[in-house]
């Protein structure tokens, strides 16, 4: 079976998947810009911005909000096109049916995300902006997962290669076959995503005009801080374990660095937007700077905080997949996968 897979595969799905992931990351970043600069409603209609057919809108002649918002739409379109290309290549050269279906899922995802973004504009609805901001990173994580499962390394993964036992690395790697690690990986991914959702609530509830927005914002902020601590600890633990056990060591190391950077970005986001809270002033003295609304520093830090958050979720997802892969979860036996995952969660 594995031999068969290895022989038939085409390199193209993997390449398209990479392209897609690389296009989606800036898309997320740019989406953050849209929110930070308040450009979401730069056009009051979606699909036909100011009466133009979308790809034909004179983007480079626009400025301010329209430039930001239309850039986001163009990038979104690019992601959509790349997803179609990926899907075509999957159906041409990917023998694994579940991967092809996964590709279909990606296409649905990107359409869904696009429509959601469009509805956010056409209905001028903050709650949809919030949901749009939560599903975007989910799509990105799925793209990253697609990169992982189409990679040659995935197919050649020692856990399913015949005769793997005599590979020299195997002795060390076999130690990874621990459901506990998978459980940690899943938990970390879920926590990281939960944190992202709470972050989106923090960001968008501030901009809502409903009477309860304040209460939601306040509670979301507390949770965001609490869950940040949990994610921080879990990601470091996961990265530590994966690193020393040789499961994607490079990725684990990056993840550890990213989570540290993310904490700093989070603190900076607060500072450049809201200055110092009272207790911090009592401890460190006054916030000595002046913030500039929608300034480059502010926009970069805030959008960066969201983008790095998405990256962390995506890396956690991939790491989880890799851990699962090393546990010997085979795509061909899906019930077994489910059982193992259920076992790991339990």
């Amino acid at each position, binding site marked *: 079976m594995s031999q068969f897979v290895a022989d038939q595969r085409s390199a193209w799905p993997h390449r398209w998947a990479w392209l897609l992931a690389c296009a989606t990351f800036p898309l997320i970043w740019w989406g953050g810009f849209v929110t930070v600069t308040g450009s979401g*409603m730069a056009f009051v209609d979606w699909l036909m911005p100011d009466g133009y057919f979308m790809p034909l809108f004179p983007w480079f002649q626009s*400025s*301010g909000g329209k430039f930001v918002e239309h850039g986001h739409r163009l990038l979104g379109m690019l992601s959509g096109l790349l997803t179609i290309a990926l899907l075509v290549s999957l159906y041409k050269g990917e023998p694994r049916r579940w991967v092809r279906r996964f590709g279909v899922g990606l296409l*649905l995802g990107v359409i869904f995300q696009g429509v959601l973004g469009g509805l956010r504009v056409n209905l001028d609805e903050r709650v949809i902006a919030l949901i749009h901001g939560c599903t975007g990173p989910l799509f990105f994580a799925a793209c990253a997962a697609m990169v992982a499962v189409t990679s040659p390394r995935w197919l050649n993964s020692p856990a399913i290669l015949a005769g793997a036992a005599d590979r020299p690395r195997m002795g060390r790697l076999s130690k990874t076959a621990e459901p506990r690690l998978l459980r940690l990986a899943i938990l970390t991914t879920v926590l990281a995503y939960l944190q992202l959702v709470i972050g989106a609530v923090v960001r968008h509830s501030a901009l809502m*005009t409903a009477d309860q927005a304040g209460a*939601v914002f306040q*509670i979301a902020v507390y949770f965001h801080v609490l869950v940040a601590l949990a994610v921080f600890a879990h990601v470091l633990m996961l990265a530590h374990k994966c690193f020393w056990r040789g499961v994607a060591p490079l990725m684990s190391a990056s993840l550890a660095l990213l989570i540290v950077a993310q904490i700093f970005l989070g603190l900076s986001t607060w500072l450049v937007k809201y200055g110092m809270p009272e207790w911090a002033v009592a401890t460190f003295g006054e916030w000595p700077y002046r913030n500039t609304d929608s300034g480059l520093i502010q926009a970069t830090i805030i959008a960066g905080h969201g983008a790095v958050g998405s990256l962390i979720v995506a890396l956690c997802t991939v790491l989880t997949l890799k851990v699962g892969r090393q546990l010997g979860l085979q795509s061909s036996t899906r019930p077994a996968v489910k059982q193992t995952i259920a076992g790991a969660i339990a």
Partner: protein
Amino acid sequence: MLPVWKWVLARRFSLAECQWHTLGNMNLRSPSSLGIIAALVAALVGCEQAPPPQFHLNEMRMVENETPADYQQEIADVLGAMFGTPDQPFAFPESGLTQTRLTLAAGAAYNDTEGVSHGLYRRHCVHCHGITGDGRGPTARFLNPYPRDYRSGVFKFKTTFAAAKPTDEDLKRIMHNGAPGTAMPSFSLLPNSEVESLVEYVKYLAMRGEMEQRLNQYVYDELADADRVDEKGNPVLDENGAPLKGIRLNPAANAGQQEAVKGMMAEVVAPWNEAKDQVIAPTEEQIPKDNRPAEEIAASAKKGRDLFFSPQKGNCFSCHGPTALGDGQQNDFDVWTKEQKAFLDKTEQLKQSVAERDEQKDLSDDDKTALERDRRLVSEREDVIKTFYPLRNAIPRNLRKGIYRGGRRRIDIFARIHQGIPGMPMPGVGGSGPGVQGTLTEAEIWNIVDYVLSLPYEAISGPQTALPENVAEVTK
């Protein structure tokens, strides 16, 4: 957790609910992608959109004046007729406000085909300053200092005399510069026309807030109680024998009330229009030149320092501390907090009095009615208190950091010292109006300006040796 839950139940979230509901009923594995999307679109469009935001009345003042609910509604109606809604503001002609600017600043945020931005206030300010301009936007509770409550019309950083309104230029300046050291950001990236629209809207919200308070007071003074009791203290009955409930507030149908409201309106608007005549104008010859030699600045700063530490003259150190680190008197409040504190204290007294009367057994029927009434009042007041943010002291600035919220130009510092900081404990040392003699002369104020601007560079041990001997007593 309760507020969140309410929020979840409220219409605002109903869109999302509908969506989950729809998703829950679908077989997600089914490949009929278009079906999912179509259903989703239907679910989203089918749901009602959130209700438009409304201006809120100042609950604390309504409860303080014991304004009955029906009068509150009438006040809101009158305000609505005069000012419109957050989506459709209205500039009554006497206000001097420009309708086009208000329209651009109000409502939901979007850009039209010409690229003109609408809904500027909701895009840039509302999350801090709140829809009513009460300084209670969603983020406000976490900010230090709290965002400005425009409704009392008091502004801190301006070039006019303390009691006067800020000029448009003053408001533009704070928007352009922000208030360094606070959450108030600079909006220097906004085009001038948008800043002007926002300034107009800030004035509009301030006028609305001031008008609300006047109407509230008018109802209290003239209407609510006026006809309820006759000279003997007996309730006046209407033709059905029910106690008369006072005169309704309805200026549209009552010429006298209309006159009164017009008068109030004029009172609210006039100071805004007169602000430009209230600018502190320092005497031209006294203004220090920019290119003074260093020795001259040092000599001036030295004089300024003596004034700063003199209990009779500047008396600055009593608040800003013997080291100018802002560690002098720190337990005072700003006017916005003082009002809340007074409300809290009064509630506490009332509560005690209710508790005391509860103990007594031989209460007359009248006393019992009064007790019940006060009990209800206490619970109303406590509901309002629940909405307060933690009260904070007005902390004098650490002058050694060189952070000036109101601007760092010499003329800015001059204005701060001359007129103090309205709303804050910091008193002015200049005259309170044109031609009025102040505690200090202009020359002396300029000396202090030089000293203040030199403070961030002064060795910290410096001023301590120069302290008057009784400083410990004075600062206490």
